[in-house]
């Protein structure tokens, strides 16, 4: 009996400690504040008022910098990332989720460290940490949609970039329908197709980080194979990984956050008509 009481006390203490931590939130662990379908609906509303960006470039070659898991708070690596992206004259920077820990002040800090959009175009996606502490409302008010596309048009071809929201561990049925529609109706008009999302798809190494449900993964794998998706770039796992499946390269990014020992990001190059990538670590 005494042992049982002790266990309950330990469990309660553990729960309170967990709850008090500023990076994790017990309620957010168990259930999203908004369902993925609700966030998708809001993203689509935002998209209808803010048309998808089409970036025209005069050169055939361009670079896109991609980072994830900056977990702002502190901004040393975030600033370095922006600085290097601007220095190398990147066309855009994509931030694939967990850009904050969900607190309002994190979002304000993050927004304050983004460069002028004339210097560097930036695209954000929500990750699970961005949703903690009711963070989606902050995300939506500052960045709007988390499900959208952008296009890059060069003198020789156009490329399609698809950003998706997997902050709740699933695309949700509505966003999945949208993704299918985009791939079925638009993919064939573009040379390369790259998908950005937060949750990495495969469980190549063992961590407590969560991957999509197996039945969802099966559907996505078939979609990516069928529509010749060139790259799927994700974060979430905090450790870089590259897996090739068919004609698709699945890339998981190192975390960008300041206290991570292998912090880094990814450069995606479109050069001489070919697609390539390079990991950069600080």
């Amino acid at each position: 009996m005494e042992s049982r009481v002790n266990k309950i006390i330990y469990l309660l203490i553990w729960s309170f400690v967990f709850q008090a931590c500023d990076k994790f939130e017990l309620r957010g662990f168990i259930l999203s504040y908004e369902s993925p379908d609700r966030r998708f609906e809001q993203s689509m509303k935002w998209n209808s008022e803010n048309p998808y960006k089409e970036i025209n470039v005069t050169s055939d070659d361009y670079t896109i910098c991609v980072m994830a898991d900056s977990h702002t708070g502190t901004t040393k690596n975030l600033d370095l990332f922006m600085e290097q992206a601007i220095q190398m004259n990147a066309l855009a920077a994509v931030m694939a989720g967990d850009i904050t820990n969900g607190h309002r002040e994190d979002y304000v800090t993050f927004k304050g460290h983004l460069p002028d959009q004339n210097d560097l175009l930036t695209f954000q996606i929500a990750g699970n940490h961005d949703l903690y502490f009711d963070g989606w409302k902050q995300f939506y008010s500052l960045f709007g949609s988390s499900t959208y596309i952008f296009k890059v048009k060069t003198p020789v071809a156009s490329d399609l970039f698809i950003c998706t929201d997997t902050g709740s561990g699933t695309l949700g049925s509505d966003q999945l329908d949208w993704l299918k529609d985009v791939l079925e109706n638009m993919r064939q008009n573009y040379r390369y197709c790259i998908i950005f999302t937060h949750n990495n798809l495969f469980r190549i190494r063992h961590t407590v980080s969560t991957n999509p449900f197996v039945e969802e993964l099966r559907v996505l794998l078939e979609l990516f194979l069928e529509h010749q998706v060139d790259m799927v770039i994700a974060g979430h796992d905090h450790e870089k990984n590259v897996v090739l499946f068919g004609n698709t390269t699945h890339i998981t990014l190192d975390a960008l956050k300041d206290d991570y020992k292998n912090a880094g990001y990814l450069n995606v190059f479109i050069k001489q008509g070919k697609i390539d990538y390079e990991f950069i670590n600080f």
Partner: protein
Amino acid sequence: MLFSSKYFIITFFILMFTGNIAAQVKLSSNIDAGENNVSEGFCVKSSLWGSWQIDKIRIEGGTQFDLKSVNDNFFTAASLLAGRKFLIGKFQFEAQGLLIYNLFSEPIHESNLGILTNIERKHFIFKLGTEFRNYHITKRGVKEYDIESNKVIHENWNLIYLFQYNLKPYDHKWNIGTSITNIDQFLINQETNPMVNLKGRYKISSPLTLYFESWYMSAGSLNISAGYFGYFLRTGVIWSPGLIK
């Protein structure tokens, strides 16, 4: 993988047709109906199971058919399990080998090969094990999408677990139980994505038992701001005539 599968099947048929040994035979059939984020509405699946137990050895095989789903195939999965009971001191358990093959689409299939320990007590069932999963592009997929390499992805040493509590002892006429697990008949989910269920069964007469299960699937847990993934209901019947020689 094919090498291992071959020996699984050979062992299965040797034991199945060993005529002069008394075997405990069990046949069951069930229907699953539910919906999830990828099912595009309501989906219905059925499965057939056969189990032969001879002394301490048990062989079990099952097949799954999609009656209403977005899947290209009708025959969508097969499973084969071989188990042997052990007694070490007073500790009884069953070691199991498991093979699940999923034909979830024409161009991509999935296979799982696992080993696990099954511990059954008066009110509890625990399963713990590991499995090796691979997704591979089929010959049809290779041809259709012009794939030259990178046809397989391996996910190794995935944890398998089940913790089940039954209100009544296992052999009671009726029972209600609940479990948390990442394994079902033809699905082994990632260890971070547990499924919870509520189960009930009722022995109608000596060989026949009816059962009912209700499953809830979450898109994640712990470090994810988890969303709903899906649910399904299962009902089935077990025919267990006793010893057959």
